[in-house]
């Protein structure tokens, strides 16, 4: 199945298949599944249309996704019910998922960060421009990846 142009193999677990998106790792994938109420052992072929729509809608723009409403849970016994705080005092649960960036947004952010470092003339920017390690690694030996990949204008 394709979601936003990324092929998710039918037989994979959903919590693993979502990591095929650039910018989604295992932790984010698990949180995404929980948000859409997909169980751990669900495979891509088991997803129903509403779940696929929910995933697509969220991933197309995480920042603009509707906030998740709190789902109140019934107490086993009235005497065991937690005291209900008025809505104004209840702290809003933190929703980290809305802050994530994926695919082209993430790549753009990375390019902008490197371009900013170059523009302000920082050490980090200079190292990117010289195709050398940025974070203080050895250059007398072992700087192969940096020489190959460090650029100011990244290809992705």
């Amino acid at each position, binding site marked *: 199945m394709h979601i936003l142009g990324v092929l998710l193999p039918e037989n994979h677990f959903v919590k693993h298949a979502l990591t095929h998106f650039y910018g989604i790792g295992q932790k984010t994938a698990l949180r995404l599944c929980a948000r859409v109420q997909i169980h*751990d*052992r669900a495979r891509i072929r088991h997803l129903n249309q509403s779940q696929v729509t929910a995933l697509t809608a969220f991933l197309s723009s995480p920042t603009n996704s509707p906030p*998740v409403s709190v789902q*109140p*849970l019934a107490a086993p016994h009235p005497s*065991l019910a937690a005291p209900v705080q008025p809505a104004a005092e209840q702290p809003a649960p933190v929703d980290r998922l809305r802050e994530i960036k994926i695919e082209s947004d993430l790549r753009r952010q990375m390019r902008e960060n490197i371009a900013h470092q170059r523009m302000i003339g920082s050490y980090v920017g200079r190292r990117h421009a010289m195709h050398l390690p940025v974070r203080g690694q050895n250059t007398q030996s072992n700087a192969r990846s940096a020489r190959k990949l460090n650029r100011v204008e990244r290809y992705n």
Partner: protein
Amino acid sequence: MSLVAALRTGRAVHTTSATLASSAGVIVHSRGYAAAVKPAKKVSSKFKANSGREDKEKQGPRDAGAYHPMPVNSLSDPVFQTENITSLQLPTFRPEAITPSAVAKPMAFPQGESKALKAYGLPRNILVDHLLLTKPCSVIRESTVDLLDQLDKASGSSSKDTRVVLTGKTGCGKSYLLLQAVQYSIQKEWISLYIPRAINLVNSSSSYAYDARTQTYGQPAFAQQLLKRFVDVNEAHVRSLATQAAYTFDDGREFSSGAQVMDLINLGLENQNQAPTVLTALLDELAKQTTYPVLLAIDDFQALYCMSQYRDPFFKSIKAYHLTFPRTLLEFASGKKSFARGAVLGALSTQNTTFRVPLELVESLGLVPSVPTNPYVRREAELLEYAKGLKNFPVPERLSIDEAASLFDLWHQTKALHIPRGDEIFLAKYTESGGNAREFVKKGILQTVTV
């Protein structure tokens, strides 16, 4: 002259050509690559073009002649007679046959008459045993007779009075005992609901969805499958039942009191989204009716008291009692809801260490905690509520000698063992395992099979 001899005597070694040449008196170099190159002989090509020949003879497979398979008629040794698999000849498990005189006798569960055991499934260890033994069977123990006596007494009274949990050491036979109780109840014309692996309710293996009406998470796929299995086993009884209350569902369907319970179940079977609600309604109906006693049997009982592996949209773990069906089971187990006639049986399991028996359940059943505890250890109020009034049925950790002998005999009848059927071997294995049923079978008897 050999190399070894030459090394001993200190003489030089000559190759074969050199020795022959030296006998003829000709000097030849001793190394092959320095030998004179003979001119290659010209050999005419034997290549024939295919285009000329039209009727090419087709060759059959190359037959060495020595590896012909034997004709089937000459395979007369009994080893080759695979059709003659002798099945175990055992008395059938019947309620009338379960008496104190039947203790230590193996009995086969009836097959074919009802779909019962096959419909509900089995705990994994029992399934493996049945595959190996080729026939579902078990040995009747003293605790079987005791438990079934308790069930008989419970058939007239509310399930609130008979909420029993089978406990004991790992491998002592709790799951088998529960299975025998379920089989007994089916044959005694009870309505039975058996959940062989309650861990599948809480390990995030089936779909879940929040239900705003009950404020719990329902499991539609599991509920639908359980309804199907329930109908497979109890259809004959359920057809005669009528609802005693009215039910309305989200999709607009309504059932007034007096409607057929079968129609209610069919709604759940057709519509997976309504299945959790239908299952709760079905259990409420079974609780009210007095025609048939009801047995609710749950293996892996402790899983209902643990934290489930499901997560809410904020990634917080969901407790098992916030799931619709486990909550219903806990309510029946704790006496908050009860069947007018029947019993609730649970069996603890030690196999999965992710779902261990929690402290509240350990204390309610009067077991010894595995970890040192004190009054300051936090006990959850909800779990204490749900563990109230549970009765402990300790399963003896040792098989008696007769029961073990009967088990040993049973495995011998399958002709799967490579040990003789003798007292020495039997007593050796019984002592090594300390009488523990699983150890006796898996590590005692089956480990002797040499491959």
